[in-house]
């Protein structure tokens, strides 16, 4: 248990640092905020008054803690562009993006592990060589291109009005999200399959497998009962990293499929220099990345007794 609390502690610390960095990053450009509100020919006095009004000239740390306490209570300030509470804007769009990312993660886990084991089980021979090359090709198809191709497919098979109000009920949302999630997941699945296959084959060459054979195990039972548990360790860590990387892919896929999720909101806010929105989304995404890595650490610690020691 000591390991768990220690890890939880580092999780909170990292989140704290991330939010501080995100906040500081945006302090560097307050001037633009004011000019964007007042227009470029604002006089210095007006700028000073506006800054005073927005409380921009109080010491940085004071503003940070104030922002943090509001943030934790859900008040992320008002968007400069739309002048409506940021948290409302995000709350509206978060479920859509969450479905997309979680669906893609689910696909990655459910497809890559069985395929990886199957390929390791039947390694060697023409089929294996063919599948490895195919896997390499799928790995190289970037989500943006795959998204566009699948977007073409949605235009043909989904009725036009469907894509307008897909977010009404849950099942329509899931149905709509299948192709976008697939375009995110496919390259990740092939990477995970390659990693699991190589990791399994490496473990099968290890000495303890020879002991398993000497006890009467067949190749299949040795793989399942001995090699798999060792081989899955790097895969768990990779899936956590993939969950983080898929956030980026989802931002692009939202752009491709015109899904109004937080990804598209982020891009729009960057273009319109709407800092509070960008800052809130970045911190949200960072929390997802850090939490996923934390879960992976816990899972690895649960599987591998040696890690439990330190």
């Amino acid at each position, binding site marked *: 248990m000591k390991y768990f609390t220690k890890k939880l502690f580092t999780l909170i610390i990292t989140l704290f640092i991330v939010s501080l960095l995100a906040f500081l990053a945006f302090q560097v450009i307050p001037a633009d905020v004011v000019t964007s509100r007042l227009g470029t020919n604002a006089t210095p006095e007006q700028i000073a008054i506006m800054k005073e009004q927005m409380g921009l000239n109080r010491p940085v740390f004071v503003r940070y803690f104030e922002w943090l306490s509001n943030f934790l209570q859900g008040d992320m300030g008002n968007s400069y562009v739309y002048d409506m509470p940021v948290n409302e804007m995000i709350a509206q769009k978060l479920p859509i993006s969450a479905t997309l990312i979680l669906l893609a993660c689910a696909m990655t886990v459910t497809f890559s592990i069985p395929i990886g084991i199957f390929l390791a089980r039947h390694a060697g021979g023409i089929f294996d060589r063919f599948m490895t090359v195919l896997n390499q090709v799928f790995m190289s198809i970037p989500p943006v291109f795959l998204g*566009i191709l699948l977007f073409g497919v949605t235009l043909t098979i989904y009725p036009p009005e469907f894509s307008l109000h897909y977010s009404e009920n849950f099942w329509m949302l899931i149905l709509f999200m299948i192709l976008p999630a697939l375009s995110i997941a496919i390259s990740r699945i092939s990477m995970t399959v390659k990693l699991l296959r190589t990791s399994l084959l490496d473990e099968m060459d290890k000495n303890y497998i020879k002991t398993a054979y000497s006890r009467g195990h067949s190749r299949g039972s040795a793989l399942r009962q001995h090699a798999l548990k060792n081989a899955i360790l790097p895969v768990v860590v990779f899936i956590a990293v993939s969950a983080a990387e898929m956030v*980026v892919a989802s931002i692009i896929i939202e*752009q491709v499929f015109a899904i109004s999720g937080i990804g598209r909101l982020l891009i729009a806010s960057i273009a319109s220099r709407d800092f509070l929105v*960008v800052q809130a989304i970045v911190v949200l995404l960072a929390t997802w990345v850090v939490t996923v890595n934390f879960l992976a650490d816990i899972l690895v610690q649960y599987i591998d007794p040696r890690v439990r020691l330190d």
Partner: protein
Amino acid sequence: MIEVDEESGNFAMKNKGISSIFQGKNVFFRIGSVITGALVFLICLSTVWLPYSPTQMDATAKLNAPSFLHLFGTDHLGRDIFSRVMEGAGNTLLIATCVVLIGCIIGTLIGSLTGYFGGMADIVLMRVCDSITAFPSVLLALVMVMLLGRGKYQIILILGILFIPSFARVVRGEVARQRNLNYIYSAKLMGAGHARIIFYHILPNTISVLLPTISIGFNNAVLAEASMSYLGVGVQKPDTSLGGMLAEAQSYLTSAPYYAIFIGLVIVLMILGFSMLGEGLSRNNATN
């Protein structure tokens, strides 16, 4: 040659290092170098000669399908897609090369110094590198775009900085591993100074680890540039890049699907070439 590994009873294939790549049937390396070689050749050629100038519009030939005249067909303004794709690919490759150069050179420097001397700097720098690599590079890049603005040079700077940690970590790991191997102790006993040990003794062995990282770096750089330009935060209007063209091509998906497909194919080929090269190199390291 075959050497029967006496203890474990299975035979071990021993080959002779980098030179063995070419005779050995390292399929990945061969395919990778063929694809990358062809692409790089085409791109270099395109700087000198192109069937059409990328900006020359031909009002009569808008959105023509691929034909002998226009290998990839023409776009909505009648420009030859093949020429534009080649120019875009050139830009993307240029950006990727600069990004990898920045990341590799500075990363190797930081990695070898922290790996060799260790101590407080090593711990702090490695913590920083770990936290940066934990975040997807494009996400951080999006934030940095707001600080440094958009455009070709900004994106090179941003991605370059973001690629330093991955190189630094790989080099540091390798240098730290070698630091307490016996041949380094012997070198010290012979009176070799720190600089001589790092550059003459440690780095030659690190190249074999660095090569796959470089090709995977290219792979990620191309991917990142394409994504950012597609989102409109990368390369800006007068300059062309595959990512940006992809965004344009998407709106003609139904009327001219070949437009997006050809752009996408070139990106896939680039990434495939580099990733296979990287795979071939790391497999070669594993066998010797």
